[in-house]
């Protein structure tokens, strides 16, 4: 029996052979695949597609090797001083090793907890670690990324306070209010900018959204701003850099209501921006307004401890249009990376890491500050910075960065939209003193010829 399914190619990803297909079609009772496609309008069936022919794995490797070779990175000998939301950190071998385990990588969301205790227990560890880091009472199992976590936190604050005005500190990365805007556009939310030294806020604010360290790398006065929020019946939402928490006071110490963060610094490759994981923690009181997956501990019929997805009535698959968020597929595997990373660094490691970043960044800042024409600026939050700082340059940052690039240096971020000739420089433990000195010297040369 001739079957048009016989045209199927035999591909390593598809086990069925022509004869098996024929056998199955016979059981189904049709002559050919087309017998199963009757519902598809015939005039639109089997359209022409402009897609290349398939490649063997060896060819694929070659093609992707060339693509990768077109990008400049540390592996091609560049040094970089970019931060601003994505950070270069050394990722321990344990993270990569565990990330190769197919049982984690190729599992689905743990809807059948008996067959997913691995994923679930890791998620519970993740929640624990986020709480320990932030000093908060509860955390969820992860959001898409930092900015969406922040946006969802502000929307959550609006639900909790039943208010519709959201304040965001002026020193925050614009990605935070931008994402919030996209997330809240049709929900009757108004976003207002709050100055970092504000002593008054509108009395109908749902929350103040504070980034600390802020976009400019500086520590905000979380305590004062949180108190200000609370005095006005608003919540305090703090967006942190988790690496900084190895050294700086945890938001939990300041009675903050919701804490969010970009989890990328905790063991996740920069990978041109994603996938990352949004960290999300809050006070226990607000838990039923929290978005995202939550994993809880319980017992099985024999009394043994086990883990399950819980409080699912908040979620879209149960609550549908009344859910706390539309999030479904999230970032469990990136959460695993964060969990293995933090477990590997441990109590001492996170401290040492924060200190190393701080030391190197401050060394770089003082060296750059000593260059003619360059000066390290404080943008009004007190000047205590972690591992990022702002430099004003003697000429446009775009020119300076172009000159740096010739020396295989990717300079700091051009923030001239926020500060004239402003460059945001980030230094982590992956920059050696030699790298920093090379950068400083290059700046000095470029500055001299400016």
């Amino acid at each position, binding site marked *: 029996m001739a079957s048009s399914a016989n045209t*199927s190619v035999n*591909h390593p990803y598809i086990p069925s052979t022509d004869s098996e*297909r024929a056998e*199955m079609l016979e059981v*189904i*009772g049709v002559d050919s695949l087309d017998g*199963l*496609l009757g*519902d*598809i309008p015939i005039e*639109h069936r*089997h*359209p022409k597609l*402009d*897609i290349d022919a398939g490649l063997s794995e060896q060819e*694929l490797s070659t093609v992707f090797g060339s*693509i*990768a070779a077109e990008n*400049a990175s*540390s592996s091609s000998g560049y040094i970089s001083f970019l931060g601003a939301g994505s950070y270069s950190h050394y990722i321990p071998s*344990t993270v990569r090793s565990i990330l190769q*385990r197919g*049982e*984690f*990588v190729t*599992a689905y969301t743990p*809807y*059948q907890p008996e067959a997913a205790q691995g*994923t679930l227990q890791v*998620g*519970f*560890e993740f*929640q624990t670690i986020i709480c320990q880091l932030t000093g908060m009472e509860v955390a969820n199992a992860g959001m*898409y*990324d930092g*900015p969406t976590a922040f946006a969802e936190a502000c929307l959550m604050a609006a639900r909790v306070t039943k208010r519709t005005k959201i304040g965001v500190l002026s020193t925050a990365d614009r990605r935070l209010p931008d*994402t919030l805007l*996209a997330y809240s556009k*049709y929900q009757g939310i108004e976003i207002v900018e709050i100055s970092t030294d504000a002593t008054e806020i509108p009395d109908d604010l749902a929350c103040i959204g504070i980034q600390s360290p802020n976009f400019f790398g500086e520590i905000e006065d979380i305590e004062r701003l949180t108190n200000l929020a609370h005095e006005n019946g608003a919540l305090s939402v703090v967006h942190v850099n988790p690496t900084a928490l190895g050294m700086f006071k945890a938001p939990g110490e300041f009675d903050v209501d919701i804490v969010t963060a970009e989890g990328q610094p905790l063991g996740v*490759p920069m*990978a*041109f*921006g*994603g*996938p990352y994981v949004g960290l999300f923690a809050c006070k226990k009181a607000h838990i039923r307004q929290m978005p995202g997956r*939550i994993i*809880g*501990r*319980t017992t099985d019929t024999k009394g043994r401890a*086990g883990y399950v997805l819980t409080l699912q009535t908040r979620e879209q698959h149960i609550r549908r249009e009344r*859910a706390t968020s*539309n999030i*479904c597929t*999230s970032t469990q595997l990136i959460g695993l990376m964060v969990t293995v990373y933090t477990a590997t660094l441990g*109590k001492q490691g996170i401290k040492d890491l924060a200190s*190393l970043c701080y*030391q*190197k960044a401050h060394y770089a800042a003082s060296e750059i500050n000593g260059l003619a024409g360059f000066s390290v600026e404080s943008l009004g939050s007190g000047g205590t910075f972690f591992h990022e700082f702002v430099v004003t340059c003697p000429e446009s940052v775009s020119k300076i960065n172009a000159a740096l*690039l010739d020396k295989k240096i*990717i300079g700091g971020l051009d923030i001239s939209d926020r500060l004239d000739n402003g460059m945001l420089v980030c230094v982590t433990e992956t920059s050696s003193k030699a790298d920093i000195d090379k950068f400083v010297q290059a700046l000095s040369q470029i500055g001299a010829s400016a």
Partner: protein
Amino acid sequence: MTISAHAGDIDRRLLMDRSVTGRKAFTLPDSDVPEQNLPDSSFLRDDVELPEVSQLEVIRYFSVLSQLNFSIDTNFYPLGSCTMKYNPKINDELSNLPGLADIHPLQPDETVQGAIRLLKNLQDDLGEITGLPGVSLAPLAGAQGEYAGLLIARAYHNARNDSVRTVAIIPDSAHGTNPASAAMAGLDVVTVRSDDQGNVDVVNLRELANENTAVFMLTIPSTLGLFEPNILELTKIIHDVGGLVYADGANLNALLGLVKLGDLGVDICHSNLHKTFSTPHGGGGPGSGPVMVTDELAKFLPKPVAEKTDDGYVLATPEMSVGSINGFHGSFSIAVRAYAYIKALGLEGLQSVSENAIISANYIQAKLRDKYDLAADRYCMHETVLSAARQKKRGVAGLDIAKRLLDFGIHAPTMYFPMIVDEALMVEPTESESKETLDHFIAVMRQIDDEVDSAPELVHEAPHDLPVTRLDEATAARKPVLRWTAD
């Protein structure tokens, strides 16, 4: 106390319970710069109470935990609507290449030409596959793709000063993210009924569609695994009242090379790269949910969109973009994998994916329909929705059958979804599984049906031999324990 001697009874203490003061798994290098002044101590915290364990303990703990999971790499996983297909290992490797994994999202475009070129090529391929040429890879999962699509629909209507359109029409069979996304987009959700064939009730849709209709959200094929025979009529009804048609492309695995959504009157769709395009699910993400639109709507796409210019590749912001729906440029490493998948399969391979996915699902359906009810008694696409209604009458629920499958090393189908099917068991075998695996599954399903009468307690109490038996979810929700605490 006796120590349990069941090799499966592993030590499940949490990391913090294993922590011993002074132990470590890692050391940082010493500082190589002159010592810098610390900030005032009022800024500084005490220790962070993270676990203190050895490096071996990190590896052993997570390795052992991993073995508690079912996964594609170790099990048949016919979870409907989730497209649990083979995740090629080469794709993981490629995404980790130096030059792809270690580039910063804010690097100047000229230093990341390869990366942007890859994004552009993937956009083009997705546009071609769906027939919707405007593509943004920004959305981080299907739900975000939906939301982006709805933002686009709203922006489109607003740009035409057509601002009374505040209704999203959504079938009763839709996935929960559809109404949730619509609500986020400030739309009122109106539900359209399915008819007894599992199709959208055309009459009902005609009643509901009007000048308030912003968008009709349709899953193609539907969550019942069925292709809407009236698709052209449905899209026409919506277009006639000035609305847009959104296709939830979670089930695109059925359509590769067989039909283009754009040809059917769809204006906007998303696709889950973590389903059809084989990127690993990771136990619940990361995903990627690109949004595809008609040329006309392309100017509203969320940023960024990769473009080719005379000076090379750039990341651009469309003219009337709905903005930034997340931090950077989407799930780049996932896009790398999806692109590798398309390149490895090529045109014929992609067609073969859908052909085989459809044959496999129909084969299972044909072999089980005497024992299990069908949600709709017609050929299905890439998945078949069974109903355990008959078994339920004999005393065993769909849930029990799902749990019993676990005892055979087979992951359960999606249970109780779509909600309109009684005791639904949604089975999606995918093209990755061999006929022997399908036959084995069929045999097991038939045996379980026997057990419903011959040994019902086996089914009721399943699973029997996994790391845990059924878990008390009610107590978990009533008295939430969500983290380790010292005690």
